[in-house]
């Protein structure tokens, strides 16, 4: 379609299932992070009481349950959205790779580091950095869910060496990904209020044509179609 006629229009980027999944996932993630980290470091420094530690872990498990059901629910009840997301994240073209030549121009933009060329090649629905980090985030979600349940219930079956490594990767893996989310994903998301409001607002998940064209021109060109009124 011609860009001219799309000026001022709105594009549905985030379906309701995406928004429900993302919001619950995000809130649970940070609640899980805080309950877990406070207990882990509290015990390490001997600064937390047994009652508090146990209470926080009880919350951690309930939150883990919600976190798990949220992910399973998304896959089971919105498989088409999950599939489209995975397809978009797993298909890497030349432009995706070229994004990494200058990291989307962000080093230059935020830190004045003249890394790579100035131009950013046109990206699809997700740019190179998003594809890489979202794949990591989804892998982390699955890994934390699986290891979380095994750590809570599986000690008699697993043996202590396996348990030890599950524990360490669960704890430190979550810290590393939380750092990525806090220091990269969220600040970058805030760069486009259209996207940010689109995914978080209670209501329709649409964004402006201008925001879509700026961030994901190839997506607009290949995958976006006019809504057919019935």
């Amino acid at each position, binding site marked *: 379609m011609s860009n001219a006629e799309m000026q001022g229009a*709105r594009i*549905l980027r985030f379906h309701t299932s995406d928004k429900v999944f993302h919001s619950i996932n995000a809130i649970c993630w940070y609640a899980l992070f805080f309950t877990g980290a406070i207990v882990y470091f509290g015990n390490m420094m001997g600064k937390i009481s047994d009652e508090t530690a146990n209470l926080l872990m009880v919350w951690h498990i309930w939150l883990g349950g919600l976190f798990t059901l949220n992910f399973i629910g998304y896959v089971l009840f919105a498989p088409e959205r999950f*599939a*489209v997301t995975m397809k978009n994240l797993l298909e890497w073209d030349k432009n995706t790779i070229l994004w990494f030549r200058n990291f989307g121009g962000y080093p230059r933009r935020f830190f004045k580091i003249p890394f790579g060329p100035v131009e950013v090649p046109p990206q699809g629905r997700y740019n190179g950095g998003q594809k890489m980090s979202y794949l990591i985030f989804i892998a982390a979600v699955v890994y934390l869910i699986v290891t979380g349940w095994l750590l809570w219930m599986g000690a008699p079956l697993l043996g202590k060496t*396996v348990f030890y490594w599950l524990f360490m990767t669960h704890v430190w893996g979550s810290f590393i990904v939380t750092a990525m989310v806090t220091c990269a994903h969220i600040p970058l998301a805030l760069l486009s209020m259209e996207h940010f409001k689109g995914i978080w607002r209670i209501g*329709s998940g649409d964004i402006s044509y201008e925001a879509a064209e700026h961030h994901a021109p190839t997506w607009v060109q290949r995958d976006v*179609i*006019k*809504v057919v009124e019935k």
Partner: protein
Amino acid sequence: MSKYQYTERDVPALLGRRGFLKVIGLCAVAVVAAGAAITKLITSRNKVILDRQAGLYADDKRLQKMKLTSSHENDVCWQVYKDMNGKPVEGEMYKLNHTHYTPRSQLAMTEAEHHV
């Protein structure tokens, strides 16, 4: 009244049969691999125990070949009774080889021992 005028193309068009099969295939591989790893882990949980037991049963077979199968074939044990002029479970042998037990509850105990 729609809030938006444009949307993404439908999933079947985007994913296609090949794409769908690719995803299902990858998930199946992941599930089978995880299942195999966990099954292997669980079935080998007792390997250390069984191996150590096997070592002792091998020691047993070695001794059976030397006609030392049962405890009553150990002449040194019978020598003890001869030297000490005693019999199993009786008299002096009872005093040396037998014991009694102490019932313990979570309450403080005094003089609560069971004797024969």
